[in-house]
């Protein structure tokens, strides 16, 4: 079904991605019930290992694991031994000793989840909850799920769905995972950013690229705005937040260029007034809150598919 770990959106085949989305659909029904709890992962231990602050992603994974009855422990960098200089390896060995069946890792260094999965420090499954400027596969999955609900009635893949991703692509793990996953699912992706915020070699990515937001808005089925950090000014990526917002921000004038059915997405947290104006953020077509809700269900699906069967170490012989 899936591999042992979920590290990159690139690891998912079309069938695997659809399996996750279909499983999410079934699990979404649980969220609508009065008893929002399943016994599926009873006795499994899931560790949230967060080296970066991200309350919303941490809570989303925590809730997903709890709804599946897993035991969840959270290991945050702040106030823990990690902030006292303990290495990733020693932290991993500690978690292994505690019997973690899965480690959900958020880390500021690109590739840290891959390292955790392959260095031989732990046996459990590793879920990438965002690594550096590399990937954030569950965000891409929840975005794909949201897109499928709005453009495909919640069925099948995303063939021909036109998605515009706008902003700091260079530093965005959300953009990387989305480009990979959405292309796997058949969507038509266009990246929009100033040239300084596009990675070298982006012309060979499986998507289109534009420097001009107004040009691509009318044809979009969905516009995904990326968070832009004002600190990027220090790296001379753009002259001022005002200029950025004028050229690449989504405001009411630009929203009017969009087709009436097109939706506005944002991985959050939003910088209102920078990449997205308040009236757009609060518009009916902005599905930011729904994305959060879908995030819990997608993460339940991932946890079920990674932990819901016999592990490769052979629980099956019990």
């Amino acid at each position, binding site marked *: 079904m899936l591999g042992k770990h979920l590290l990159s959106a690139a690891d998912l085949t079309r069938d695997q991605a659809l399996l996750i989305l279909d499983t999410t659909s079934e699990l979404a029904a649980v969220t609508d019930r009065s008893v929002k709890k399943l016994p599926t992962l009873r006795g499994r231990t899931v560790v949230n290992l967060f080296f970066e602050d991200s309350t919303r992603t941490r809570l989303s994974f925590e809730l997903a694991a709890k709804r599946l009855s897993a035991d969840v422990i959270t290991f945050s960098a702040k106030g823990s031994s990690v902030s006292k200089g303990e290495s*990733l390896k020693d932290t991993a060995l500690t978690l292994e000793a505690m019997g973690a069946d899965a480690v959900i890792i958020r880390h500021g260094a*690109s590739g840290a989840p891959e390292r955790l999965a392959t260095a031989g420090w732990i046996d459990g499954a590793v879920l990438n909850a965002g690594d550096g400027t590399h990937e954030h596969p569950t965000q891409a999955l929840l975005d794909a799920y949201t897109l499928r609900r709005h453009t495909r009635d919640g069925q099948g893949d995303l063939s021909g769905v036109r998605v515009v991703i706008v902003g700091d692509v260079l530093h965005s793990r959300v953009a990387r995972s989305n480009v990979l996953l959405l292309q796997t699912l058949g969507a038509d992706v266009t990246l929009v950013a100033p040239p300084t915020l596009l990675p070298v070699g982006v012309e060979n990515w499986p998507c289109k690229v534009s420097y001009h937001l107004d040009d691509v808005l009318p044809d979009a089925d969905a516009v995904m705005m990326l968070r832009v950090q004002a600190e990027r000014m220090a790296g001379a990526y753009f002259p001022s937040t005002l200029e950025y917002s004028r050229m690449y921000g989504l405001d009411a004038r630009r929203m009017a260029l969009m087709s009436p059915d097109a939706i506005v997405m944002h991985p959050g947290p939003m910088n209102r007034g920078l990449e997205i104006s308040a009236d757009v953020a609060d518009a009916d077509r902005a599905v930011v809150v729904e994305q959060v809700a879908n995030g819990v269900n997608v993460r339940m699906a991932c946890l079920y598919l990674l932990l819901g069967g016999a592990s490769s170490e052979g629980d099956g012989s019990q």
Partner: protein
Amino acid sequence: MTSMIIRGVQPYGEAAQDVEISDGVIARISPAGSPTGSPASAAASQKVFDVELDAAGCVLLPGLVDLHTHLREPGREDSETIATGSRAAAKGGFTCVHAMANTAPVADTAGVVEQVWRRGVDADLVDVRPVGAVTVGLQGAQLAELGAMASSAAQVRVFSDDGLCVHDPLLMRRALEYVKAFDGVVAQHAQDPRLTEGAQMNEGELSGRLGLAGWPAVAEEAIIARDVLLAEHVDSRLHVCHVSTAGSVEVVRWAKARGIRVTAEATPHHLLLTEELVASFDPIYKVNPPLRREEDVMALREAVIDGTIDIIATDHAPHPREDKDCEWAAAAMGMIGLETALPIAAQVFIESGRMDWRQLCERMSVTPARIGRVADQGAVIEVGAPANLVVWDPAQTTVVTPAMFESKSANSPYLDRTFAGAVRHVVFRGRPTVVDGQVVSGEVAS
């Protein structure tokens, strides 16, 4: 002094000879199996040697000279010492290494370079030639006492802030000018610091995909271009460390065509490995300058073959395990290379038929000795030449395992690889330092 004979060995891979050594020099070279000793002596065939080395089917080369070695002492004796680094060098077929200056304290005074030099003499396995820092504390602000280091017992001729670039153009110009007084050379680590802030790997499509900050080729090429023009302007010698890009090769080629006195080195890892390895996020492949594209590797190989790149230098950079047993961004840059340099060079250049052994000796022994102004190293194999020699056995294999290293560190990107051929014997100043692949120290009877 030890008297020695190496039987049946093929100098430069040519006709088999018996090579006799006494008093630290090559005493006689005669066709294999012919009577030994002085032709005038009637008892010649009965001559007894202190050491007899069998080397049938093996290739005899002048001892290798490395212009770029990190021995880590003083300061990081947990990763390497001058003694362990000397053993690693000997095992790799080297008889001379240049110890880089980025130690703690930095080798920026006569006191430190003399200490390094003396520790090398004590280890007595290779000539350890200290490299002096160009600027005080490698800070790039003020010239170190280059003259004092040059006239010290260590006789420093190579100066480098390696690890850091001498970025200030005025300082670079002054350093190039100043070393002319003692025939020195500035070895530049060409890396524009602003263009490589936080850089983790070669900048290109792969770095974009992996989300690792890029180290663009232009950051190397722009510095080399500036430096060759400075070297031309002040008519001094410039050496470019670890050239890693096809563009850098073009710049060096252009400079040489203009008659600029520039020499350049490439490392074995830049001649063999590509950035694709970084996709594993295994920091064993993290090195500075970073592994580049296949096109760069191919351009570097051609440049070594046509002499645009003068020498192969290891950039042997030992690190303790904890500095690689971590996530990519936290890992130290560098890989060890002394003990795998010759197997890699043999694979890339000899096995492929692109070079013969005489040409490879130019790149790994003769020219590095000349750039470093090292007497008694890199000499042609002939009677009367200093007996610094390496015997290469093409019939054996070098299997890279953590246990094989004499280096105190094992951060090699070649673990589990097997290379054809192996260093069999090494002779340093007329005395065996490696016999049958094992480092021997002190007096040894075979």
